C-alpha cells in the first residue's frame, strides 16, 4: 500500500465512511427524526464535497487498476456537487419517506461505483464500477413503492442495463481474447486496426454508449426518467450520465487510440442520430420529466460529437459542459421536484401560468431551460458552443449545420415550457409553492452556477489547466 493511499483514495474513503455511518445509524433501534437525519446527511455530503478541494495528489493504486489525478478529482467533485444538490433539493420529498437511509445508502453506493468508473485504468475496475453504479440505481428507481410507474422504470432499467452489460462483457471478453490484458495501457498498445479488434472494441463501446443513452441504445432513458422519483431522475440524468461520459472519455483516450478512426466516424453518426432522435421525441412530450429525458438524450449527442474530435480541447469542452449541465439540469429538476411533491405529477399543463404565483421558481426553471437550450448569457451557451467548436475540427459543414439547426429544434420545446410558465391565465394557475430553505439554497447555487460559469471564464480555463 503506498504511503499516500489515504490521499489518493480520499474521495472513495469519504463515501465509504458515510455509507458506514448510515448503516450504523440504521442498525440503531431508535431512528432520529427525518429533518435532523437529513440535515446530518447533507452536512456529511457537503463535507465530502469540500474535501475534494484539499490535499489532492496524482497516483495509482491496486496495481495500477485505480488511477487518480487532478482531472479525476475534479470530475468526482462535480459528481459530489450533484449528489449534494440533489440531496438538498429532495428534502421535501424525503421528509415524508420512510426509507431515508436506504435511499442515501443506495445513492452513495452508486456514487462510489461512479468514482471507480472514473478512476478505472483497468477493464475489470471499470466493469465493477459500472455495475456498482447501476444496480443500486435500479433499486432506488423503485423507491416510490406504491407507484406503478416507479416499478416499471426500475424493471426497465435493470433489464436493459443487464443486457447492455452482457454486450459490454462480450466485448471485454473478446478484447481480452485479442490482447490478453485487461489494463487500459496494455490494451492501447496491443489493439490494432483489425476487424476482430474493432468488433470487440465496438461491443464494449456500445455498452458504454448505453450508459450515456446514445441512440439507438437510449430507449430505456425516457421511461426510466419518467417513472422514477424526481430525485432519482435527477441523479440518473446528471450524475450517472456524467460518470458514464467521463468513463467513456477515459476509454477512448487511454484504451482505444489505435482505433480512433473507427470510433470517430461511428461517433459522428451516432451523435447526429442521437441529437435528431432526441429532439424529435422531445418535441411532442407533455410530461416535463420525459421532455427533459429526451432533451438530455439530445444533449448527449452534442457531447459525443465533441468526443469524436479526440482532442484535449474536446475533452475539456465535454467536462465543462457536464459541469454546466449539472447546474442546469438540477435547477430544472429542483423546481420539478418541488412541484411534483405538491401535484404528484409532472405534466406540462400543471405549469400553466406558473409564473403568477411562483416567480422565483419560474425564473429558476426558465434560466435552467435557457441554459439547456444554449442561450446566452447562461453557461449553456458556452458549453454547447465549445462542444461544437471542438467538434468542428473533424467534421464537415453538413454535420455541423445539422447539429446547429438541431439547437433550433431543441429551442422550440424549451421555449414551449417557458411559454407555458409565463402564460397569463390567472384562473387555473398553481398556487404558491412553499420552497424549503435547503431547496432554495440548491436552486440559488444552480442558478448562480448557470449565470457565472459561462461569462466568467474561470471554470473553463481551470479545466484546461487540469489536462
Amino acid at each position: 500500500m503506498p504511503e499516500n493511499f489515504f490521499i489518493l483514495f480520499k474521495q472513495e474513503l469519504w463515501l465509504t465512511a458515510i455509507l458506514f455511518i448510515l448503516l450504523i445509524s440504521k442498525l440503531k433501534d431508535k431512528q432520529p427524526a427525518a429533518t435532523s437525519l437529513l440535515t446530518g446527511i447533507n452536512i456529511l455530503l457537503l463535507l465530502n464535497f469540500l474535501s475534494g478541494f484539499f490535499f489532492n495528489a496524482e497516483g495509482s493504486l491496486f496495481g495500477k487498476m485505480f488511477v487518480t489525478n487532478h482531472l479525476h478529482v475534479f470530475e468526482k467533485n462535480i459528481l459530489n456537487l450533484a449528489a449534494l444538490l440533489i440531496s438538498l433539493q429532495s428534502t421535501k420529498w424525503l421528509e415524508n419517506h420512510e426509507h431515508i437511509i436506504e435511499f442515501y445508502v443506495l445513492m452513495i453506493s452508486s456514487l462510489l461505483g461512479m468514482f471507480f468508473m472514473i478512476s478505472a485504468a483497468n477493464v475489470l475496475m471499470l466493469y465493477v464500477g459500472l455495475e456498482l453504479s447501476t444496480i443500486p440505481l435500479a433499486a432506488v428507481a423503485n423507491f416510490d413503492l406504491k407507484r406503478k410507474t416507479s416499478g416499471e422504470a426500475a424493471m426497465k432499467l435493470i433489464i436493459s442495463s443487464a443486457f447492455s452489460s452482457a454486450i459490454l462483457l462480450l466485448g471485454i471478453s473478446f478484447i481480452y481474447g485479442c490482447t490478453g490484458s485487461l489494463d487500459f495501457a496494455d490494451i492501447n498498445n496491443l489493439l490494432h486496426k483489425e476487424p476482430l479488434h474493432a468488433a470487440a472494441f465496438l461491443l464494449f463501446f456500445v455498452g458504454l454508449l448505453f450508459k450515456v443513452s446514445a441512440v439507438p441504445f437510449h430507449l430505456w432513458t425516457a421511461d426510466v426518467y419518467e417513472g422514477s422519483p424526481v430525485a432519482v431522475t435527477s441523479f440518473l440524468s446528471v450524475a450517472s450520465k456524467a460518470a458514464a461520459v467521463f468513463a467513456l472519455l477515459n476509454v477512448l483516450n487511454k484504451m482505444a487510440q489505435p482505433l480512433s478512426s473507427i470510433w470517430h466516424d461511428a461517433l459522428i453518426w451516432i451523435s447526429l442520430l442521437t441529437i435528431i432522435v432526441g429532439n424529435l421525441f422531445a418535441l411532442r412530450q407533455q410530461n416535463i420529466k420525459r421532455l427533459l429525458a429526451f432533451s438530455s438524450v439530445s444533449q448527449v449527442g452534442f457531447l459525443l460529437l465533441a468526443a469524436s474530435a479526440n482532442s484535449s480541447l474536446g475533452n475539456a469542452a465535454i467536462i465543462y459542459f457536464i459541469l454546466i449541465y449539472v447546474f442546469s439540469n438540477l435547477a430544472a429538476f429542483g423546481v420539478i421536484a418541488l412541484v411534483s411533491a405538491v401535484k404528484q405529477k409532472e405534466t406540462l399543463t400543471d405549469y400553466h401560468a406558473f409564473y403568477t404565483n411562483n416567480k422565483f421558481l419560474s425564473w429558476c426553471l426558465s434560466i435552467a431551460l435557457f441554459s439547456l437550450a444554449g442561450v446566452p448569457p447562461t453557461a449553456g451557451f458556452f458549453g454547447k458552443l465549445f462542444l461544437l467548436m471542438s467538434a468542428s475540427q473533424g467534421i464537415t459543414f453538413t454535420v455541423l449545420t445539422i447539429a446547429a439547426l438541431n439547437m433550433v429544434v431543441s429551442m422550440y420545446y424549451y421555449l414551449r415550457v417557458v411559454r407555458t410558465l409565463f402564460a397569463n391565465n390567472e384562473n387555473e394557475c398553481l398556487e404558491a409553492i412553499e420552497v424549503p430553505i435547503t431547496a432554495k439554497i440548491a436552486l440559488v447555487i444552480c442558478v448562480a452556477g448557470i449565470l457565472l460559469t459561462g461569462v466568467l471564464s474561470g471554470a473553463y480555463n481551470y479545466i484546461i489547466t487540469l489536462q
Partner: protein
Amino acid sequence: MTVGLTHIIVLSTALFFIGMFGLFTRRNMITMLMSIELLLNSVNINFVAFNKYLYPAKMDGVFFSVFIITVAAAEAAVAIAIIINLYRTHKSIDVDDVADLKQ
C-alpha cells in the same frame, strides 16, 4: 478429438444467442432474468477459455469471470426484488403488462 478454443467459442456464442433469443421472446420476467444469466455465463465461458488457451500465464480471465458471477448474483437479487414489487403493483409478471411508459 481434442476440444479446442474454437469449439468453446462456438459454444459460448451459441449460448449467448440462445440467451438473447430468450430475452427477446419470453414474456415472463423471471425467464428473461434467466436468459440474462445465460448471456453472462456465455461471457464467463469466453473469459475462462481465452485465459486457458491463449494466456495461461496470468489468471486475469478467470478472475474476471468470478467478478461477473458475483455481480450477476447481486444484479439478480435486485432484479427479483423489483419483479416482486412489480407483482405487487401490477398483479402480473408478464413483461407486456408493464408498458405504461411509452412514446
